[in-house]
């Protein structure tokens, strides 16, 4: 029998963040992760630490994203100090490029709404083409303009993932792979999990299994109806630094790679790539930055987003199975700082963060509401 204080099911960015934070709060943590057949958004994402326009219709989500972006420098400094890994956090502000006047108008309306709701510290600028070109000379003539917000940035998501594992390991977290969880039972305040041919026990359990949460949550009285949404991205050869701001669609990494993305496709559990979709991504990339027509591409991939019906996170403690929690979200890079510093301490026994009260999975049980997600 393997016992710990906390079992985390799922070893993606979310599970690793929660495990690290809980171990820092003093818990003995074991992470049970599936094997390489799993769908893993954490290994295929775009690396943005992004705030702008998140939370239109739900200002708590804008506040939550902003708080995480503001805590990110602390997370990155901690990871550097603890592991020696620089996760290449850069927060120069971010650009959302618009290819039509209509898109500019919609974004202005949304960002203004968010500023009114969140407060004057939620800053943004509307840049017309000339203004945009002054800051980003490589932008193409088909771009109408952009919205700029100073709180946006990006990181190297693979270095982040590695640093979280490394730091968590140093804090005593045990990672077990090949541990796809099929069964969870609960008796006398103890969760018993069967995974990887072994039995694991703990008084606390976090479901952080990404798309796997959908099936696991009902086993402990929780509800997490997340669905896959496919994103395909293109990866260029490494190039001399040429883009000084991340944008919603194109960014250049610390090592020179230009990442161009991404699509939003409802195709179920299929993470294959499609030439026509990749062609569309390339065309749009070239429209934004015509110089990219000369770049060599070295890779393309797809990964599945973990989408809730309204696109917002799900954080909830189980009432019927005290000690069980679900933690899942679409923007696991952006929210990593919150997961380490706010969600994990709550799970470890600290106070409930009032900021997350709108994010209970039970909201989706309300049959009178119709959900759409803006991602």
């Amino acid at each position, binding site marked *: 029998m393997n016992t710990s204080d906390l079992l985390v099911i799922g070893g993606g960015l979310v599970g690793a963040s929660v495990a690290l934070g809980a171990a820092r709060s003093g818990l003995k943590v074991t992470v049970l992760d599936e094997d390489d057949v799993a769908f893993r958004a954490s290994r295929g994402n775009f690396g943005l630490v992004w705030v702008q326009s998140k939370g239109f219709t739900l200002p708590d989500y804008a506040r939550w994203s902003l708080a995480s972006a503001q805590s990110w420098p602390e997370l990155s400094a901690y990871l550097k100090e603890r592991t020696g890994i620089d996760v290449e956090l850069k927060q120069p502000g971010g650009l959302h490029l618009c290819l039509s006047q209509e898109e500019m108008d919609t974004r202005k309306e949304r960002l203004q709404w968010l500023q009114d709701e969140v407060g004057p510290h939620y800053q943004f600028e509307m840049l017309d083409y000339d203004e945009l070109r002054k800051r980003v000379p490589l932008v193409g003539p088909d771009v109408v303009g952009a919205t700029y917000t100073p709180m946006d940035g990006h990181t190297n998501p693979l270095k982040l993932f590695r640093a979280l594992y490394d730091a968590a390991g140093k804090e005593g977290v045990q990672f077990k792979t090949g541990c796809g969880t099929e069964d969870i039972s609960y008796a006398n305040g103890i969760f018993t999990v069967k995974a990887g041919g072994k039995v694991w026990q703990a008084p606390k359990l976090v479901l952080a299994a990404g798309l796997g949460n959908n099936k696991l949550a009902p086993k402990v009285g929780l509800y997490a109806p997340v669905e896959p949404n496919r994103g395909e991205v293109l990866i260029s*050869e490494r190039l*001399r630094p040429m883009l000084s701001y991340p944008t919603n669609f194109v960014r250049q990494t610390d090592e020179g790679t230009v990442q161009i993305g991404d699509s939003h496709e409802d195709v179920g559990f299929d993470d294959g790539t499609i030439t026509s979709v990749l062609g569309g991504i390339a065309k749009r990339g070239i429209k934004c930055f015509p110089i990219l027509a000369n770049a060599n591409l070295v890779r393309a991939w797809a990964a599945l987003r973990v989408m809730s019906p309204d696109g917002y996170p799900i954080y909830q403690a189980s009432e019927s199975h005290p000690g069980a929690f679900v933690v899942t979200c679409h923007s696991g890079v952006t929210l990593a700082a919150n997961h380490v510093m706010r969600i994990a301490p709550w799970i470890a026994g600290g106070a409930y963060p009032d900021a997350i009260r709108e994010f209970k999975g039970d909201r989706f049980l309300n049959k009178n509401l119709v959900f759409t997600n803006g991602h």
Partner: protein
Amino acid sequence: MATNSLFRPLQGPSSTPARSVKIEFDGRALQVQEGVSVAAALLSAGVSRFRTSVVSETPRAPYCMMGVCFECLVEIDGQASRQSCLVQVRDGMKIQTQRGPRALTDGTEAGNE
């Protein structure tokens, strides 16, 4: 640049010697076998450094010889980031070591095919 190559062309069944072409590598004239890839030609001429890597700027040379690893990048006739294992040598080709990451230009690069 070493001149003693570790590599020798295989002897084919025919006794007629392979024809050669003249190319230039970093300004130096080389006589190489016709019909082979730029990578094979340079290797058999004793070239051991093709580029410096992007992040750490350490020397690199061809590895897979089949278009997968991108270790063999050189500048060919003014165009950077060519995979030399996938390009056939041509008489008069001008090849240069590629140093660090490529700088993208606006599409008027010489030698664009």
